[in-house]
């Protein structure tokens, strides 16, 4: 039975997802954000982190078909993913609270939640954490151009 560590992320009081343990590289409280005009409504701002320009993508806003709020985010996680062979890229996700670590085994695998239906586009697996289904984010897809437009 295979086991792996994951970070459990809370985007709002209802929406949860997870990433692999090594995919989250940093957290920033009250980050300074820069608005970029003419960008998708769920991803309008960037932050500077260690000299990198990192897009901030509001997963909750995208899943619900809304706009990212104009208010400051109290907490964002910074995530690393392999954008291409031998190429690391970074993306940031606003979080409601500090992530929680979980050990996840194959036995916890389950189907994605039926709602919001758009989970199927951005998650490549799902596991059960108590009574809750937790989609596992496909960061490479999430931060690609697939959700633009």
């Amino acid at each position: 039975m295979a086991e792996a560590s994951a970070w459990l992320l809370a985007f709002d009081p209802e929406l949860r997802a997870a990433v692999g343990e090594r995919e989250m590289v940093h957290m920033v409280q009250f980050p300074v954000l820069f608005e970029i005009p003419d960008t998708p409504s769920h991803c309008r701002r960037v932050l500077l982190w260690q000299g990198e320009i990192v897009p901030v993508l509001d997963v909750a806003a995208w899943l619900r078909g809304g706009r990212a709020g104009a208010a400051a985010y109290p907490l964002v996680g910074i995530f690393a993913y392999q954008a291409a062979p031998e190429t690391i890229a970074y993306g940031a996700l606003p979080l409601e609270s500090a992530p929680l670590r979980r050990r996840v085994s194959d036995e916890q695998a389950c189907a994605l939640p039926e709602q919001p239906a758009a989970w199927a586009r951005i998650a490549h697996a799902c596991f059960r954490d108590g009574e809750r289904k937790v989609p596992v984010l496909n960061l490479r897809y999430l931060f690609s151009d697939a959700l633009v437009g």
Partner: protein
Amino acid sequence: MNPATRADRPTSAHEAALVAFGVDGHRLLLLQREVVSLESVLDLRRTGIDPPAAGLIEWAGEDWPVYCPSGAMLAMTATIPPQRRFCLLLGDDRHRLAILCDQVEMLGAADWRTRPVPACMAKPDGLIEALIAHRETVDCLTNTARLAAFCRRAARVESRDG
């Protein structure tokens, strides 16, 4: 993963003079060589305009369409807010237009290292050509062609929405 390679490393450098202009808190940069002239908003003609243009301005014997982006979305408006004091005339080989703005600043020549707009933010034909990280801030680089396309898109939206 090889941490030596990063996806958004600087891809090019502009050792050219830039101009920064501000609209409702947005700050956009473009190459100084695309700036044809800087005029006063008081010189605008408001008759015979073709929406979403906010007016016309005469330069070198020709009328240039003047656009007034406004608000968080930089939506085109025909109502010119009092803070729009400058009219920036822009031109390249194919386009010419004027943009009303609140502030204009000449930044001079420097080694501007540009980075691509992150893939998850980059609309095809989008307003922003590249981003520039400079002195703990992030600026947006645009150009005349992208501004012209942005204004054309606004025209299509206005036409569609009646």
